[in-house]
């Protein structure tokens, strides 16, 4: 970790000197996917946030508050985890992230603690606290990631690479991420009939097709029995019985096993009811393909 930060600082110094020397017009870049041959981020960079506002970053960010699990995982994966000086209380991965100061949760932020850290950047994925943070002269980057999809995850990785001046690492990680997804795709025979699946989050609440989970099911050639709901909703138990899923994924198998109503459902009859062991599928970060693989290995025995 230390080596990397020394390297970044070196790059940073180099960058400033070249900038001063050339006194060139600094390029701004809105397109995070561009394939630039240069391995250095040219500052300043502009990032379009979810309010359609440009956030300009003048130099590699050294201290940031990151109130999002996926972003924390990305930063650690590209070796910039040591620049996070504050995060929220629900961070579960990686192990080192648990040592970071907790400055908020889903319902509240501790504005005093945030200011005390003097961050160069505060990252949030919902804009509830944006105004309060802005008022205190903090640079806020708000990117709505709740409606994420796969390509968004690689965009996010590249974006963090630019912000921290680790474009190389970010590109490597993106490539690895995309390779993993491609490998998964190559293992699936999309001409086969897709098994029916019900993903229970708790109490029959489930995700519809227009969610990240919906996308995962499509990727794995699984047919989501909640195909006609939007976002997240509680599915009627009758409908579950009628649509007769071949697989059920649930955190509480007892909901289904103890209720005689479900005993004729294929998934129960054939004991195809499972609980996911890791939380990888609930964080849209670099571990996401791991989560997809875990789900796939439960469905396809030869995986």
């Amino acid at each position: 970790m230390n080596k990397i930060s020394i390297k970044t600082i070196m790059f940073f110094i180099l960058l400033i000197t070249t900038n001063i020397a050339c006194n060139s017009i600094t390029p701004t870049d809105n397109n995070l996917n561009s394939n630039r041959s240069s391995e250095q981020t040219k500052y300043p960079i502009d990032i379009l946030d979810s309010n359609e506002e440009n956030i300009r970053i003048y130099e590699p960010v050294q201290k940031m508050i990151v109130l999002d699990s996926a972003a924390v995982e990305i930063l650690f994966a590209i070796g910039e985890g040591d620049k996070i000086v504050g995060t929220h209380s629900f961070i579960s991965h990686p192990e080192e992230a648990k040592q970071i100061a907790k400055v908020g949760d889903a319902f509240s932020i501790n504005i005093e603690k945030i200011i005390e850290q003097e961050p160069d950047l505060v990252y949030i994925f919902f804009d509830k606290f944006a105004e309060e943070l802005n008022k205190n002269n903090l640079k806020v980057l708000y990117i709505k990631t709740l409606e994420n999809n796969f390509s968004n995850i690689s965009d996010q990785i590249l974006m963090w690479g630019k912000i921290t001046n680790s474009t190389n690492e970010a590109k490597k990680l993106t490539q690895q991420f995309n390779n993993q997804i491609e490998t998964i795709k190559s293992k699936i025979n999309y001409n086969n009939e897709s098994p029916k699946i019900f993903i229970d989050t708790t109490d029959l609440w489930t995700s519809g097709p227009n969610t990240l989970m919906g996308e995962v099911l499509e990727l794995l050639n699984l047919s989501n029995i909640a195909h006609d709901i939007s976002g997240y909703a509680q599915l009627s138990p009758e409908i579950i019985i009628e649509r007769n899923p071949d697989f059920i994924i649930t955190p509480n198998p007892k909901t289904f096993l103890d209720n005689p109503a479900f005993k004729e459902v294929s998934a129960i009859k054939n004991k195809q009811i499972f609980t996911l062991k890791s939380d990888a599928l609930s964080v849209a970060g670099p571990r996401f393909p791991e989560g997809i693989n875990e789900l796939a290995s439960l469905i396809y025995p030869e995986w």
Partner: protein
Amino acid sequence: MIFPWKNTILSLIVMLAIMVTSISIGPVNISPIEILKIVTYKLQLIQIEKSWPESFESIIFNIRMPRVLLAGVVGLALSISGASYQALFKNPLADPYLLGIASGAALSVTIVMTQFQNSHLITNIIPISAFSGAIVCVSITYYISAKQHGSVNTLILSGIAIASITQACTSFLMLYSNPDLRPLLSWILGGFASAEWSQILIIGPYILISTGISISLSKYFNLIQLNEEQAQQLGLNTSKIKLIIIINSSINTAAAVSFAGIIGFVGLICPHIIRNLFGGDYRNLIPLSGILGASLLIVSDTISRTILNPVEIPVGILTALFGGPFFLYLLAKTKKILY
């Protein structure tokens, strides 16, 4: 004792019709003829050939029937405890929710659910803990309101205070003791999506017994409406009757909250409608508002599981949404509340 046989039997028939209709309505289309066939097949009255998928039997016997019955007993319990609290506090605004009793029950259930997550006994502990929460809250409310000689304002205000305190504690527990608060949240919103026969077997006996007690005590409910002295002149031990009402109604409320969560307004509206239709005699009021409560909640639950097919909406949201305006209408329309 004069029991309103005619009205009770008539309304029971209406309620049965509602139950049968509700069983035949649902997100999955099963025709009434098919339901009739399935039921006769199950009861083995006559031999008929099986011409329906296995899943229909599950849907009718293990989803709709327990659901309709659970909604029925919960409606009955809420409505009768509402009417009893109204008698006890001599106040038509008393209701298990307004008095903070349901919130008290909800708090103790939350404590149990967050502390004993993996216990197998949990389904059996829930009604008992709900009862202890309910009885503590109603005792506090009653003590304070008795000190002020039963002032209406004191009663409602102390109810609001207790509800705020218990709800604050519930929110705190939900936020800080369990990272996954979805099961609790969906329980608190109230609903019957996960109704099972086993739940009816657990709370059914409590509700039926305490309903029986309320009906048999209904003539005393009339007497405690008189002032203390008059009642004592008639040879009535009012404090004993009141104690029985408190315990009995708390059992009813607690049983309802145990598996259905927070469902507001049923206990307030049903006795009101019956009062407007049949007058304030508790011998009428107790059984009839119980039957009305059951019917009302069965209808609400049927709407909640069909209106956004295939999605469920918590029935507590529906009763508040429709019950609230209806209650306001009643308040505006009635010149004097028959009480």
